[in-house]
């Protein structure tokens, strides 16, 4: 039915079909929602803001607030300065946020709006104790992941200060992940006795509980004071090289906070590395609770290895997430045959190839700046046992009759996923369960009656 993909792979240089990425501003909006009392502001046409809010709402099944400069013809000719000024006044007057986080759009970037100048001009009118920060997020550069990094860096550039008095904390910068993942990263840090500040932190915002009251600014999120104090951290840990290395570097340059960059802690090895980094910082011995979780994960992987071993998979989505899932898939003996992201950048390919090489896997195709149409063509020529990624893969899964494991972003057609982690040992257990269930359900569906077993 939805099978419009041809088997012959035609070279494309201009046409993007079925993207595996979206544009910078939505990433910036998501990062800004991870700051307490923050109103994300989209400096561009109204549709951008509306689309981003809709997109985030569809993934998280939670309200996503943001305001827009609502560009008109006039603004596109004379610049959006007066729109932004009116917007800042209106937002502080009526929505009363602690902070407004402005991001640009393709339009305001192309007409050359100077946000630094606009905000500096307006500075004297910003109410006492309130803040305005901004970042540039041209939609024609990078992807939503780039926008996420840029917004985090924007907060740091405007707010973080090194007062000369260290606060004994570690700054944690999570990659573009769900609130459930951020909670898990924090839980592990706490277990490791690390005093931390996480920026951004969308837990408690995009997974806020139902209270019968609408909170425009839910309880979660990094506070402005915490962001200011990031400059006094002992060190920062960037969890996800592609999304988080840059903001951590900005914090080092601005406030001399040294940093270490790790992969998103998905799978055994990457979680081990996260815990080792925490251990090095706090010198706290790894508590039994974490050792136990790791041991349980080992037990699960061993018990079930006959079902995951040698199974081929296609992994697609955001770069740090895809790298983590690729690592985990290899750890349980799977063969990631196609590993793609829509986000451009050669680092992804380098890292993915390194993982495959480490596990002695040959003949796989790794590609950044790819799209789902291209991956579908490869699958048509040489299929896989499982697909792992977001909801847009479902058309391929249906056309090729391949089980789909939903992980990453965006997931628009299922519930609960954003509350549950895929990071840490617990997250790995969940991913392994999802993958095994997909494989084994398929075996049950397809096997002959005489092979149909109640014990597997």
């Amino acid at each position, binding site marked *: 039915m939805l099978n419009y993909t041809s088997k012959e792979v035609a070279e494309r240089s201009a046409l993007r*079909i079925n993207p595996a990425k979206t544009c910078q501003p939505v990433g910036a909006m998501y990062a800004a929602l991870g700051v307490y009392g923050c109103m994300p502001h989209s400096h561009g*046409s109204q549709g951008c803001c*509306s*689309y981003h809010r809709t997109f985030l709402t569809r993934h998280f099944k939670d309200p996503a607030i943001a305001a827009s400069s*609502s560009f008109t013809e006039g603004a596109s000719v004379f610049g959006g300065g007066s729109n*932004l000024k009116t917007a800042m006044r209106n937002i502080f007057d*009526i929505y*009363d946020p602690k902070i407004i986080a402005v991001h640009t759009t*393709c339009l305001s970037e192309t007409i050359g709006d100077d946000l630094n100048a606009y905000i500096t001009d307006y500075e004297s009118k910003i109410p006492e104790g309130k803040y305005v920060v901004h970042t540039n997020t041209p939609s*024609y550069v990078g992807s939503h992941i780039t926008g996420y990094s840029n917004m985090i860096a924007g907060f740091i550039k405007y707010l973080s200060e090194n007062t000369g008095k260290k606060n004994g904390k570690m700054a944690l910068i999570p990659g573009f992940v769900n609130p459930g993942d951020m909670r898990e990263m924090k839980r592990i840090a706490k277990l490791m006795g690390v005093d931390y500040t996480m920026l951004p932190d969308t837990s408690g915002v995009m997974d806020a509980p139902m209270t019968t009251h609408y909170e425009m600014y839910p309880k979660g999120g990094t506070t402005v004071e915490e962001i200011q104090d990031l400059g006094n951290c002992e060190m920062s840990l960037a969890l996800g090289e592609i999304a988080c290395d840059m903001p951590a570097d900005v914090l080092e340059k601005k406030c001399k906070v040294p940093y270490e960059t790790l992969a998103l802690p998905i799978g055994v090895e990457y979680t081990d590395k996260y815990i080792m980094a925490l251990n090095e910082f706090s010198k706290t011995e790894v508590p039994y609770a974490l050792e136990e979780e790791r041991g349980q994960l080992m037990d699960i992987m061993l018990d079930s290895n006959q079902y995951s071993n040698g199974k081929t998979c296609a992994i697609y989505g955001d770069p740090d997430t895809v790298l983590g899932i690729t690592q985990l898939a290899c750890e349980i003996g799977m063969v990631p045959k196609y590993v793609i992201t829509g986000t451009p950048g050669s680092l992804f390919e380098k890292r993915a190839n390194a993982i495959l090489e480490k596990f002695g896997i040959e003949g796989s195709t790794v590609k950044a700046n790819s799209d789902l149409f291209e991956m579908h063509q490869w699958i048509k020529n040489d299929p896989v046992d499982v697909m792992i990624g977001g909801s847009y893969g479902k058309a391929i899964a249906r056309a090729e009759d391949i089980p789909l494991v939903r992980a990453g972003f965006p997931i628009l057609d299922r519930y609960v996923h954003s509350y549950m982690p895929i990071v840490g040992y617990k997250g790995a257990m969940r991913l392994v369960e999802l993958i095994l269930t997909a494989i084994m359900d398929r075996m049950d569906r397809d096997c002959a009656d005489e092979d149909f077993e109640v014990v597997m």
Partner: protein
Amino acid sequence: MKTANDILPERSQSIRSTGCSGDGSGIKCESESVSGAISQRACVYCGARVVLNPITDAFHIVHGPIGCASYTWDIRGSLSSGEEGYRNSYSTDLREKDVIFGGEKKLAAAIDEVMETHSPKVIFIYATCIVGVIGDDVDAVCRQASEKYNIKVIPVKSSGFSGTKKTGYKMACHAIMDLIEPEEAVEKVDGVNILGDFNLAGEMWIMKSYLRRIGVNVVSHFTGDATVDNLREAPKAKLNLVQCAGSMTYLAKKLEETYDIPFIKVSFFGVTDTSDSLMRIAYATGDKDVIARAKAFTQEESNRVLPLLEKYKKNLGGKKASIYVGGGFKAISLIRQFNEFGMKTVMVGSQTGSKDDYELIGNLVDEDAVILDDANPAELEKFMREKGADILVGGVKERPLAYKLGVAFCDHNHERKHPLAGYEGALNFASEINLSMNSPVWTTIGGAEDV
């Protein structure tokens, strides 16, 4: 901290919250949104895209950076009885160098790449925000491609900032007029066109089946489950039926000017409106046989459906409804439906309603009902709480808002999963709002009555 009780001064003209003359003339609408407001509205591109997207065998290439293509990829919920190609996402994914050196070459190459592997009858090129700013002559690229491939390559000027969503509807209507332009004189046939139904959950099919039952031939349909060939038949019709007035009245007027096809506005939401519309269509044909069949059919269906609806009334009667939808005309139909259920509409708003719509709405609801144009979540929350709404009917962005407030919800937009049009639709609608308001989950949650 301030509460949402404050309303932006600029917004107060767009809200009618106390009893007034009832003629609605006071409400400010059909204007740009206020900068800084959290509007639920979209943009020109969105308007153009939602109207054209359901044309199942057209190719839709979004010319611009990737966002506009990715956010509109297969989200419309328009069903197809044949082709599924429109459910893919095509774009030029403009990058920095294209913005500096211009995107015309890339657009031309993208069209070539489509033509290498497919043979579409028409390609729509959506020119998004920056395309005009970087100086791309999209018209010229389309013209050249049209000549090269001998198909229609139609530019859709949809810079987000160049108006509201309604401007986008207009741009889509221009594109449709361009598409259906006949090569020779038109010979009329007996039959009607349906305008402004997008076949969400198969609603176009329901409307077509009703018309078939009363003996009215449907020539072509805009744009739910439409094909290019079918749309090109449209000039032959003798009457246009306009369902979604907000998006399609403009096209109806153009078709009237160009092909001498008169139009009537119809609504297939609710039993009353469905029956009324079918009778008006029958009378418009002037055919005695059709009128008799329509009478019999509407009677038969009302007799079938009304007793079933009656069963819901004991659950629904006396409950308070709030409405926030895209167009004013749909809001009107919804108010009538709630009246049929014995429910009272306490808040009603739309993103793009017109003065006429709001005037009619003012006459349909009680004096103390709140009417708002282009509302934001804070306003919706304030008035739903103030008026004690039991259910909100809206779209994707309103759903989590309602649920966070502990208010029931029904999607009357792209995410509807059951058809809400016609007699079946009226039953589905009653069933859905009943399920949402009386779901066992409220008992588990408890305390929802506190709201």
